């Protein structure tokens, strides 16, 4: 204990020399360093009185002799801007404390999700609104560092623009910026010293951000084709000369409204040629004495989830080429583990969560294309919207494991479901499955289930999986599952196991070595086989 006291004393002695303002350290605990640059550190801090989180940026005055314009932050009020709280200073440092925004930086948000054009448009429009507030300020405020890292996406989808370290109020009469600030790739040419930056510097960075959101690149589109309307907006935002850009962010927002809504006009000459060709083909059809199928518009079948398409193709042995409805009707089983699809159960069963990269599937809507699907095996994904599984008449096995499942209501709509393996899916209520009268296997291990009330009652379940569950007791388990023959209990923590004795048809339980004694005590005098497994 003396050693620990010595460590504490040493630590106190060293940190007594800290350069941060003492009143700042008295008011806040520094919890994490969010960013560190020469002379400037940004911390996640926690208010000692009350525990609220905040963000503090501390400037070394030797490096930043001019104080950042705190007044600017105080005057700006908008849900898309962090609130200024207070500042602390001493001879060495100035620490500015502002609101902590719960959420993810846009770069991380995009990395973990696929954004639709509607999502991108939403981010862009919100950013326009924020920039409008900055640029309408008197004098106008130019952020000068718009980039994904400085945009926080809140859990509700709202965005907040942070980091005003290099923002400046535009001064009349200044001809150039003398020092380069900003982020290469996003900063406009004038920010490198070609002229004074004004609101069009932010419009330039906005255009780069838009291109990055659509293509993943800041400089060029690569092989990705962009909606022509959107392309025009990006080109105009990122014009080299500021005077060729949009002059006002509200113009950009107006232009964005039309993206994706414009009706395509066909060149009149091409339209005439197509009409003539169609007429000739129709005549040919009549001449041949038959109306042919090719006059019918062909609907191209497309999947939302490429991995589900791959699994379907593997099952029917058609790796490429267009899929027809007849092809899809042949798909009976899907096997997907992490980011890999398989043609059958054998390689799928050899996969282990610990060895596989998690998969990209977010929705099961594609299953509606597979009307004859009988078994679906998908493991190790992220948040998965399961609503698309509803109403598949022939489905009898659902194995969805190691993911965050939206719920089981849609699974319960499969009328013939016999096997539901829903291990480690973040579920807290599976009672909807009571609607499946033929259910024989129910595995609800490692879910957020702490009472059998969250499981329900099942007259025909024979195999019950309760691994990793923490339950106070299983007193009414025999009433809820009267036909159970085998139960898996490994790793579970069931305080009172005595209910197991009441199972009329129980044949086997599966436990770990350390659980054997407790189970033996309860099942003493019965013929139930106690199987010990390693895992």
């Amino acid at each position, binding site marked *: 204990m003396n050693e620990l006291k010595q460590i504490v004393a040493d630590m106190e002695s060293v940190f007594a020399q800290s350069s941060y303002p003492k009143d700042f350290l008295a008011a806040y605990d520094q919890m*994490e360093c969010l960013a560190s640059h020469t002379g400037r550190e940004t911390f996640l801090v926690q208010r000692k009185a009350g525990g609220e989180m905040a963000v503090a940026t501390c400037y070394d005055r030797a490096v930043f002799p001019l104080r950042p314009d705190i007044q600017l932050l105080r005057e700006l009020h908008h849900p898309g801007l962090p609130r200024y709280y207070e500042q602390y200073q001493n001879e060495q440092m100035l620490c500015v404390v502002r609101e902590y925004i719960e959420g993810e930086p846009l770069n991380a948000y995009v990395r973990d999700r696929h954004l639709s054009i509607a999502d991108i448009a939403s981010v862009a429009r919100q950013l326009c609104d924020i920039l409008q507030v900055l640029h309408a300020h008197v004098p106008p405020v130019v952020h000068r560092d718009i980039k994904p890292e400085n945009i926080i996406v809140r859990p509700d989808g709202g965005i907040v623009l942070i980091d005003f370290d290099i923002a400046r109020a535009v001064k009349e009469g200044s001809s150039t910026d003398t020092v380069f600030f900003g982020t290469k790739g996003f900063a406009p040419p004038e920010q490198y010293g070609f002229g004074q930056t004004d609101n069009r510097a932010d419009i330039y960075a906005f255009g780069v951000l838009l291109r990055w959101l659509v293509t993943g690149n800041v400089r060029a589109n690569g092989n990705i084709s962009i909606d022509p309307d959107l392309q025009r907006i990006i080109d105009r935002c990122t014009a080299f000369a500021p005077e060729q850009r949009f002059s006002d962010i509200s113009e950009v927002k107006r232009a964005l409204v039309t993206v994706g809504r414009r009706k395509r006009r066909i060149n009149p000459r091409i339209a005439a040629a197509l009409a003539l060709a169609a007429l000739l083909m129709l005549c040919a059809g009549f001449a041949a004495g038959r109306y042919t199928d090719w006059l019918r518009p062909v609907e191209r079948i497309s999947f939302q989830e490429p991995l589900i398409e791959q699994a379907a193709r593997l099952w029917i042995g058609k790796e490429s080429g267009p899929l027809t409805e007849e092809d899809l009707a042949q798909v009976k089983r899907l096997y997907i583990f992490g980011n890999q699809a398989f043609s059958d159960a054998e390689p799928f069963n050899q996969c282990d969560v610990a060895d596989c990269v998690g998969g990209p599937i977010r929705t099961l809507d594609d299953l509606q294309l597979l009307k004859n699907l009988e078994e679906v095996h998908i493991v190790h994904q992220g948040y998965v919207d399961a609503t698309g599984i509803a109403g598949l008449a022939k489905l009898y096995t659902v194995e969805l494991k190691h993911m965050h499942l939206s719920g089981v209501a849609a699974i319960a709509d499969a009328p013939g479901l016999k096997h539901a393996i829903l291990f480690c899916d973040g579920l807290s209520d599976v009672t909807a499955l009571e609607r499946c009268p033929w259910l024989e296997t129910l595995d609800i291990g490692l879910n*957020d289930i702490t009472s059998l009330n969250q499981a329900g009652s099942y007259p025909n379940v024979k195999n019950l999986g309760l691994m990793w569950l923490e339950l106070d007791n299983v007193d009414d388990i025999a009433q809820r599952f009267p036909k159970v023959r085998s139960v898996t209990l490994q*790793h579970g923590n069931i305080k009172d196991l005595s209910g197991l004795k009441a199972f009329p048809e129980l044949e086997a339980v599966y436990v770990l070595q350390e659980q054997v004694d407790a189970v033996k005590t309860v099942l003493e005098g019965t013929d139930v086989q106690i199987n010990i497994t390693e895992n």
Partner: protein
Amino acid sequence: MPDDNRISTDELLALLFKERNLEHFLQRNESAYLTASFGEYLNNWCRQHLEVPEQVIRRANLEKSYGHQLFSGKRNPSRDTVLKLAFAMQADLTQAQDMLRIARRSLLYPRIKRDAAIIYCLHNHVSLVDTQIILQNLELPLLGGREK
């Protein structure tokens, strides 16, 4: 308890706290970790050290099902949870920083008093319990005490 080979607090902090340029300390080397998830890292560590997840989860003083969700990759750990696991796995400072990088959490930063105490304890293999005592005596938030 600290082992006998530990360097003194003064030495360590002189190295870190008084260093103005911390860029080398925080140098990122993310490319090496692009393919590893935090769950994979934990499982690999268990395989290499012939341990089962339950032992690590217990030593890190984590709730069991939550701990397994971390091992299965179903949940992302908070920064404090990563640090508790680092103590449970007797990680040194480099390994702890690697774990934070993989979990995409802020690295330990020695100019923060709380981080400096944690760095010291990791470096000298002080147990999680003793580390919490040190944090408490320094009147700093305990690991996992107030998750953001």
